């Protein structure tokens, strides 16, 4: 009922406003077209000026409000490059923005019609048009040059010795896999998948799988200053590995393997100090619409020191062992039978 009342009220307001507006136009008619035109242009020309001032004040105010809410500095090598590039682009576009908006609103105010000024017939000028074709072209060339340089480093081959971690999306969580002591991820195939004891569809005939560690909640454990390559996949629909603190992102596409690499530069603990936020965590967000649970597809990323990482790794049991405890009498070392030449990818 109250909804109906509300609708009624809104309509009533509309009608009243319309009537008021109409009568104000009657007045205008009595005043005469010319007089009315002049008055209107004066009011609106001036309003445009006010609008511009409000616009810029609003922007500054918004900026001040937002700054403390923005995330911390970039936490990866690529992120630093990104932040630099962002600043350059912001300056270039910022200058154009202020220039053009000021001109737009200023012209509105300055050139309002107020009487019978002779119209200016100015239909084209090759010189001007040439200038504002070439200047943007040069600016674009600069942006493209900076951009492509960054793009090719970011998407280039991961450096030798990068740590490899697999991250797989499914509705609606992430699963991560670490290569284990042999430093290599084993083969997998989607037909082998089952949610009971083979989350990723590992092929147990491939012995490299035996020591692979799976973290079913997708936690990523990265080491400060050690490059990491993420091997990205999906079990069902398209997801996206979004690592906003590291300024990195890559789709997880079923049937296709995608990769990104970067070097984390700030540990979680350090970031807690920097931000003064006890609860700070790096988060991995799913950035590609994947269904009703999309918004909750979250995983934690921990950046730690090498020592901490090694300690953590030691405590993990391989996924195979976890699921086949009977084959492994307690305490036996869980190392897959691989030749020692490729022990750890890091010294490959």
């Amino acid at each position, binding site marked *: 009922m109250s909804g109906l009342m509300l609708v009624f009220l809104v309509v009533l307001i509309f009608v009243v406003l319309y009537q008021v507006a109409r009568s104000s136009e009657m007045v205008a008619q009595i005043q005469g077209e010319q007089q009315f035109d002049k008055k209107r242009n004066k009011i609106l020309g001036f309003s445009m000026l006010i609008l511009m001032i409000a616009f810029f004040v609003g922007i500054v105010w918004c900026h001040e409000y937002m700054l403390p809410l923005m995330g911390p500095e970039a936490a990866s090598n690529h992120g630093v490059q990104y932040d630099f590039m962002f600043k350059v682009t912001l300056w270039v576009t910022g200058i154009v923005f202020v220039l053009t908006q000021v001109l737009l609103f200023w*012209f509105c105010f300055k050139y309002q019609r107020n009487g019978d000024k002779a119209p200016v017939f100015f239909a084209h000028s090759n010189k001007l048009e040439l200038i504002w074709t070439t200047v943007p072209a040069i600016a674009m060339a600069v942006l493209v040059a900076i951009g*492509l340089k960054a793009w090719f480093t970011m998407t280039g081959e991961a450096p030798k010795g990068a740590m490899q971690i697999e991250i797989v999306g499914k509705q609606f969580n992430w699963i991560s896999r670490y290569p284990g002591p042999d430093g290599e991820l084993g083969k997998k195939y989607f037909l082998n998948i089952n949610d009971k004891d083979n989350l990723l569809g590992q092929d147990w005939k491939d012995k490299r799988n035996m020591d692979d560690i799976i973290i079913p909640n997708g936690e990523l454990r990265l080491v400060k200053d050690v490059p990491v390559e993420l091997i990205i996949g999906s079990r069902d629909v398209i997801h996206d590995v979004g690592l906003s603190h590291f300024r990195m992102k890559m789709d997880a596409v079923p049937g296709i393997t995608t990769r990104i690499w970067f070097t984390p530069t700030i540990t979680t603990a350090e970031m807690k100090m920097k931000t003064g936020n006890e609860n700070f965590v790096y988060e991995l967000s799913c950035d590609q619409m994947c269904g009703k649970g999309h918004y909750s597809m979250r995983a934690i990323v921990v950046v730690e020191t090498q020592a901490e990482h090694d300690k953590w790794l030691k405590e993990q049991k391989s996924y195979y062992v976890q699921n086949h405890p009977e084959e492994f009498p307690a305490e036996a070392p869980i190392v897959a039978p691989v030749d020692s030449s490729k022990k750890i990818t890091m010294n490959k």
Partner: protein
Amino acid sequence: MSNEAAIHTDVHTHDSHGHHDDHAHHEHKQHFITKYIFSQDHKIISRQFLITGIFWAIVGGLMSVFFRLQLGFPEQTFKVLTMFLGDWAHGGKMDPEMYYGLITIHGTVLVFFVLTGGLSGTFANFLIPLQIGARDMASPFLNMLSYWFFAIAGVIMFSSLFITTGPASGGWTTYPPLSALKEASMGSGLGMDLWLVSMALFVVSSLLGGLNYIVTILNMRTKGMSMTRLPLTIWALLFTAILGVLSFPVLLSAAVLLLFDRHAGTSFYLSEIYVAGKALPNVGGSPILYQHLFWFLGHPEVYIIMLPAMGMASEILATNSRKPIFGYFAMILSLIGITLLAFLVWAHHMFVTGMSPFLGGVFVLLTLLIAIPSAVKVFNWLTTIWKGNIRFTVGMCFALGFVSLFISGGLTGLFLGNSALDIHLHDTYFVVAHFHIVMGISAFFGMFAGIYHWFPKMYGRFMNNTMGYIHFFITFVGSYVIFWPMHYEGVAGMPRRYYDFSNWESFKQFGELNQMISIAAIIVFIAQLFFVFNYFVSIWKGKKVTDPNPWQSNTLEWTTPIKPGHGNWDGEIPEVHRWAYDYKDDGNGGDFIPQHIPLKEGEESH
């Protein structure tokens, strides 16, 4: 069929041309249904498109109010949600499934039904014959079909809101496998089929319309109306139609393949999938193929939306500055540049799909190239109003607002087009801010400018000015308030298409801001109802037009009677002697010379 013969002229012919009397004769017998429903008069069809567009804009807008309630107030419940959504909002809290359904349909109907069908359909139909001097479209019948396909597409889309599994809910881009597998989401059931069928019909409508517009512009210009004398509105509508005709079929093929994958067991887009506890047999397809097909339309689509707005803004800015448009040929060249480049940049929506970095690099280059013609247009508009005699009609205000918004939104394209930056910004609120400002709001501003400007020609009455100004200021300020802060959220990495952010350590600090945005969105929505009210009341109650050329404009539509009948001109179609922008001293104290006035002795044509 000759142009003249196809038409029945209206009754109030005042001239003595014999053949008109016959026509006037069976005009009397025109039934309401043939005159207003199954009409073949381009002016009626244009109003049908516009009113259908307004309906869809209200539906789409209301949906955005609903999901903004969820985003701004995730902890609260709202009776109004239950009222509209029923079981989808039990106890006043919207279901995630419904949230995703709403954003999907919101995006689809605003992009396609409002800003493509509604915008092009309205103004291409209305302005092309009137401004080139033709009695109607090349094929009035196909034109009518175009509207009815559009209407049926709309009915199907609308019906998908009422089925038990809900409407399509994979986002307006409907990427497979999500959209291909009914196991993956409720909305991928019947709702998705209806979405695909509706879009297929929409493509048909758009092709029928587009071909008609192109043929009409190329073949049916009146005597003297050479291509280089056309108003920029017509140039823009021409390229809009060309873009549509060349790219919409690709969307159709994408949709057809998707239907096959859904129902015929094919694997165009599917490979190695394990969903809902079982592995699917499909191998060898690629979901990325769909994205290529979709964006091959999708990017041109954004210019299909943009160009008509650009054309109308050019026309309105020139008319109300009492100055010729600056750089007419540069404007045409930049339209051509935009049209060509629009086909070559689609993969900038796919930088993070794992595409080859080299290919990505090529698309960066092509994408940033498109900024050049865009910049030329902006500078030309600014120079057009420079030293003008600006008359602030409501249409003019909206055209000026359009320029402001286009600048703001275009500039953020430079961030997104640069792949290294897009890696971080992709699928965040930065993209949401970018495309709403540059396409959503600014195209709406172009559309409003057009409606306020040509309303007198459509209905023989004016819309109420004062209400128009209120509408302008609320919408202009409100749009920036809504979308400006979203850039910041995006830079902080806040992902788009999230139902709730409160569990995210990195994004929950924006809660208060999201509230503010939602409130602004509701206010702006109400201001649009204000416009709708003004529109409909003014059809019957608006101030009557007494001067056939109320804006002292140069183009041909103002040489028709105040309420032109089917056939547009009572007598002969006027002959054109000059370009559309002779806003200059006419020698008798006036400041404009319409296109049908012959050149004076010694006067140089442009």
